[in-house]
């Protein structure tokens, strides 16, 4: 029996998985909106302490990485595996940059004594404790998704270089792209919710 291959099916499966990813973050958004509603002033004050410049920079990085992966798919479909690989490499680079900046941000906050259960944070108001609790769990979960994405992207890079992904068979790369875009979209919401609304 021939091996069954259904590109459209794979894409549907990926999308369904992404829907459940959205709801995974959805649970956190429910918490965020409820706690923001209950502690508007504390959230306002706490948001001032995040570094808006770094946040903006990270947003631009992710947006650009979304462009680079979409171009990588575009070129593999055209049969240009070299350009496709280069754009994949760029995406990986941007992802690492994102995590690097995130690392700088977190360590700065932790250096200031603002981390869950820190004596300094416990001395603050309850709304601020919640803000930072949510900040760490939401950006942390997002960062974890970026990290997982980086592993998948690297695997894709190998496959593209080996020619296992080519102009006839590119659905795995497309699905990786879908995942990466979703990670981008979640950041598009996290960024204003934590850094901008003050």
């Amino acid at each position: 029996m021939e091996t069954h291959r259904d590109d459209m099916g794979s894409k549907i499966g990926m999308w369904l998985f992404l829907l459940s990813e959205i709801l995974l973050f959805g649970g956190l958004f429910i918490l965020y909106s409820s706690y923001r509603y209950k502690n508007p002033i504390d959230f306002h004050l706490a948001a001032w302490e995040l570094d808006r410049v770094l946040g903006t920079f990270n947003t631009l990085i992710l947006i650009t990485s979304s462009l680079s992966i979409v171009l990588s798919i575009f070129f593999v479909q055209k049969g240009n595996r070299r350009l496709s690989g280069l754009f994949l490499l760029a995406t990986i680079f941007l992802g690492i940059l994102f995590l690097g900046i995130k690392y700088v941000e977190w360590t700065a906050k932790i250096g200031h004594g603002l981390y869950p259960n820190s004596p300094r944070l416990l001395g603050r108001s309850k709304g601020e404790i919640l803000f930072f609790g949510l900040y760490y769990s939401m950006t942390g979960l997002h960062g974890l998704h970026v990290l997982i994405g980086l592993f998948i992207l690297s695997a894709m890079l190998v496959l593209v270089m080996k020619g296992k992904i080519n102009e006839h068979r590119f659905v795995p790369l497309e699905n990786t792209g879908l995942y990466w875009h979703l990670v981008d979209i979640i950041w598009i919401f996290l960024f204003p919710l934590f850094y901008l609304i003050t």
Partner: protein
Amino acid sequence: MTQNGVLEKTYPAASFYDHQGKYRGILAWILSTDHKRIGLLYLGLILLFFSVAVFFGFLMRLKLIAPGFPLMKPQMYNAIFTLHGIIQIFLVVIPAIPAIFGNFFLPIQIGARDMAFPKINLLSWWLYASGAAIVFLSLFTAGGPIDTGWTFYAPYSLRTTVNVPLAVFGVFILGMSSILTGVNLVTTTHRLRAPGMSWFRLPLFVWGVYATAWVQILATPVIGITFALIMIERYFGIGVFDPAKGGDPLLYQHLFWIYSHPAVYIMILPAMGVVSEVIPVFSRKNIFGYKAIAFSSIAIASVGSLVWGHHMFVSGQSDFASVIFSLLTFLVAVPSAIKVFNWVATLYKGSIELKPPLLFALTFIFLFSIGGLTGLIQGALAVNMHLHDTYWVVGHFHYIIFGGMGFGFLAALHYWFPKMFGKMYDMKRTIGGWIILFIGFNILYFPMLILGWEGMPRRYYDYPPPFHTLHLISTIGSWILIAGLIWIFFNLIQGLRRGEKAEDNPWKGASLEWQIPSPPPTHNFEKIPIVGKGPYEFG
């Protein structure tokens, strides 16, 4: 023996048991991507866990046989009722029908050779097995067996010294398994229907599993993140559920029930699908109101996702929320009622043979009706103030889950047994087992309704003497029930060992799984069939 003459039986094909794949022995099973083998893998584990959980239930009932009965210490009782709940809910009832019968029969019923993603299907089973292993590992590590109740309510679950993080991690893994199964089932239903298998020619079991799969995809992640937060909270103290740090314990309950109420529909919808399969076959006539049943599955899945707040009427949530949730709760009863009426109407003017599958299906209707109707009583705002968190609720959900889903499961098992194993069980003996089980069931659970109405709170390891009589009756019922279960499963095992060879279509069913050999060959269909009529047209 054909579906409109298009399904030619040209093969003497070997059954999937005899399939010679890459691996031998046990590996040929636990590394197989064949949906039928994976279905049986689930069956094996689930029956194992079910018997463990039944044993815990038996111990609980034994402890409650008399006030002050010195069988075990409070901590032990608290751990046992927690484990009974966690195992039955997360390891048995949620995966049972979709993962066993959905896996085995959904592809065959829509005329496919396998699931859309066979490898992911195997991965799901491995995640399920590892999640279960982690839950059991949590009993012997760190602080020992969990004592939080299966609900893990914060802040108690944040404070207790037992091994909560590992247990919730195990459940988290089970959730991933459930999501992947859901993705697989939805994609399969969309992509792999045979030519001619239009949406309204799908067997109603497929509709039930399909609706369930959507709930699995959309609701499971919410509890995933909630349990992840419990873990993070315990390790890092982020404060999101801890009132001492501003967290709101009621938000934990919202997130928990956003999944865990629809989970009840994950349990019951596939069982309803089974009943919708069995009744027409044994009445020899088309199901009454096919579309109403199909759409009510979707309605139950969607409206059922909006009623979680009825677990929180006395929690201190706003009165406004309670009113809305109560209204929605009453409304979700309507599609369930429609199904029941349609099933009963299908019997009308049929040519009925009361064989074991039908017997279990009709028992489902009776017990599920009691469960549903007691649900209406406790869904009323005023009455809920009295009945919430009492034995009434314990009785109610056992009528739904065991009486509904459990009997649906037994119906499915007896209906598809000859197809799955190619052997027939002794039907007369099944009837005997059914009588014992049915009597035991009602003696066990009906007194709980009265106990609850009298004010007996749940999760008590001991109780005041006035409640003694009913507790005693209930405990005796548990023995009868277990005897019935043993009888029924013993009979099936006997059937497996020395039952007659089953015919390909012993019940003269019209859906696709009955048109192929028993047990099915590895690839189900030699040629993908072309479907020309509905699943209940017996002609």
